[in-house]
C-alpha cells in the first residue's frame, strides 16, 4: 500500500501503562503496550472486553494521561488534545440541542475558527448527508448520526483519526456500509486511522494491520499484517486467506480468554 515506511512512525506507543485508582484498589488497564503506527495506515486494535483498547485510544487522543510510558505523535509526546487528532466516539455523540450543521460547526466554534464550508459540503455529500443540515440528531437514524460524527471529526482535516468502536451500536448491514464508507474516504484522502473494534471482520476489512490485545492488563499479544488489495471487494473478503486470518485472530482472543477464566477462579481454591 501507499503506507510510507518512514523512520519516525506517525504514532508511536512506547511501553504505555495505565493504572486506575478505584475504591477496590488499583486496576492495571494497560501494561507496557508498544505499537508503531505508520503514517496513512489503518490499524485496528481488537481484543477481549476489558483489555484496555479504549483506554489506549483515549490516551492516544491526549484525553487520558498514562501512568507510564509515552505516546508520541510525529515524534513529539502527546500531553493533551492535539488539533491533528480527530476522534469518533462509540455512539455518534452528537449534541442533541444542535442541528446537524451546528454539530459539525462545533469544533470550529471551540477553536474560534471559521468553518471550512467547501470542505464540509464535500464531506456531507461524500457521506450522503447533503440537505440534512437542518435536522436534529433525534430525527436521524443511528447510521446517519455516525456519518455526521465522522464528518465532524474530519472537518478539521486531522492527520490522525481515532475511532473508538464507532459502529458497535449499528446493525450489521449498516455497519458494513459504514466500513465501506470509511475505506472510500480513506482512499480519497489517506489519513492515519486507529480503529478500535470488537468485530474481527470489520478489523480485517478496514485495516493494513490488526493488533490483538490480551485481556487485562492490556498488552499487545500479536500483530497481523492485512495485505489484501483495496478496495476490498466481497470477493476478496470471501477468500481463504481472509478466512484463515479471521480464525487466527479469533483463536488469539478466545485462547486468551480460555486461559484467563480458570486463572480468575483459581485463587480462592488454591489460596494457600
Amino acid at each position, binding site marked *: 500500500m501507499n503506507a510510507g515506511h518512514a523512520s519516525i512512525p506517525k504514532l508511536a506507543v512506547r511501553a504505555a501503562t*495505565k493504572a*486506575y485508582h*478505584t475504591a477496590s484498589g488499583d*486496576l492495571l*488497564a494497560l501494561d507496557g503496550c508498544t505499537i508503531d503506527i505508520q503514517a496513512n495506515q489503518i490499524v485496528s486494535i481488537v481484543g477481549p*472486553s*476489558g*483489555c*484496555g*483498547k*479504549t*483506554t489506549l485510544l*483515549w490516551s492516544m*487522543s*491526549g*484525553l*487520558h494521561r498514562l501512568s507510564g510510558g509515552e505516546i508520541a505523535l510525529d515524534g513529539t509526546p502527546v500531553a*493533551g*488534545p492535539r*488539533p491533528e*487528532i480527530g*476522534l469518533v*466516539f*462509540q*455512539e455518534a*455523540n452528537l*449534541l*442533541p*440541542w444542535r442541528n446537524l450543521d451546528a454539530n459539525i460547526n*462545533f*469544533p470550529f*466554534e*471551540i*477553536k474560534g475558527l471559521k468553518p471550512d464550508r467547501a470542505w464540509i459540503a464535500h464531506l456531507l455529500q461524500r457521506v450522503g448527508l447533503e440537505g440534512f443540515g437542518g435536522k*436534529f*440528531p*433525534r430525527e436521524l437514524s443511528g447510521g446517519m448520526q455516525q456519518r455526521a460524527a465522522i464528518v465532524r471529526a474530519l472537518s*478539521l482535516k486531522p492527520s490522525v483519526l481515532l475511532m473508538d468502536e464507532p459502529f458497535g451500536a449499528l446493525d450489521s448491514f449498516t455497519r458494513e456500509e459504514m466500513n465501506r464508507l470509511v475505506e472510500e474516504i480513506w482512499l480519497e484522502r489517506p489519513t492515519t486511522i486507529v480503529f478500535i473494534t470488537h468485530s474481527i471482520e470489520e478489523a480485517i476489512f478496514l485495516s493494513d494491520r490488526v493488533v490483538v490485545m490480551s485481556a*487485562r492488563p*492490556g498488552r499487545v499479544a500479536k500483530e497481523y499484517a492485512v495485505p489484501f488489495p483495496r478496495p476490498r471487494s466481497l470477493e476478496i473478503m470471501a477468500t481463504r486467506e481472509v478466512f484463515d486470518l479471521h480464525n487466527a485472530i479469533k483463536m488469539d482472543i478466545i485462547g486468551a480468554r480460555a486461559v484467563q477464566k480458570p486463572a480468575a477462579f483459581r485463587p480462592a481454591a488454591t489460596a494457600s
Partner: protein
Amino acid sequence: MSDVIPEFSKGGDEQKVSLTNLSAFSSGPGIRSGAEILAIVLVAIIVIGGVELSLRYFEVPLYIMPPPSAIVVALVTEFPLILPHLGYTLVELSGGFAIGAVIGLFLAAVITQFPFAEKIVAPYILLLVTTPMLALVPLLILRFGFGYEPRIIAVALAAGPMVMINAATGFRRVDSAKIALARSYGASTLQIFWKIRAPMALPMILVGLMIGAIFGLLTAVGAEMVGGGFGLGNRLTTYSSMIQMPQFFAVVLVLSTLGILIYVLFFLIGKKWASWEA
C-alpha cells in the same frame, strides 16, 4: 461501554430526568381537532352552566358562593379598580423573581462545579426550599415596612431556591462523552460550561424557572395579604372583609389567569429551546 472505568464517567453517566421533566410542557396545550375543541367547549358550558343554574336554583346567598355570571360582571365592572393592584403584584413578582432566579442560577452553576461545597450547602438549600417563605413576611415587614421591599424579598426567597435546586439537577447531568468531545477540541472549562453543561441543563433550568415563578406568585399574594395596602392579595382580604364575594372571585380569576400565563410562557420557551429532549 468502555473497557475500563474511564476517568470521565466517574460522575455517573447521563442521568435521565424523569417526572419533573419537560413532560409537564409536552402534555400541555397542543393542536386539537375540531371535534375535540367542540367537546372541550361543550363540557365547559355544561360545568359552568350547571354551577350557575344550581347556585340559582338552590338560592345560595351571594356571600357564600356567587354564580359565575356575577363573577364575570364583577370582573368587568371592577376591573379598572383591580388593574393597578395587578400592576403592583406584577412588579413584586417580576422584581423578586428576577433577583431570586439570577442568584439561584448563579449558585447552582457555581456549586455544582465543586461537589464538596455542594455537600456543605445542600442542607441549607433544602431548608430554604421546604420552609414556606410566607412565614418570614411578618418579620420582613417589621424590618422593611409596608412597601414593596418585604414582598420582593419574600418572592426572591421563595423563587430562588426552587430555581437553584432544579438548575443544579440540570448542571449535574454530566455526560462524560460530550465533555470529552469538547475537550478533544481543546475546549476551556468556560467553553465546556457554556457549550455543553448549560445547554444540557436548560430543560431543567426552565422547569426550575417555571416552578420558581409560580411559587413567587403564591408568595407575593400571601405577603400582600399579611400587610400593606396594595396588591391583589390585599384586594382579596379587603373584598372578603367587606363580603363582596363576586369581586373577591374576580380577583381570584385574575390570579388564575396570571398563573396560567406563567405556565404558557415557559411552555413556549421550552418548546422553542428545549424541545430536543422531549
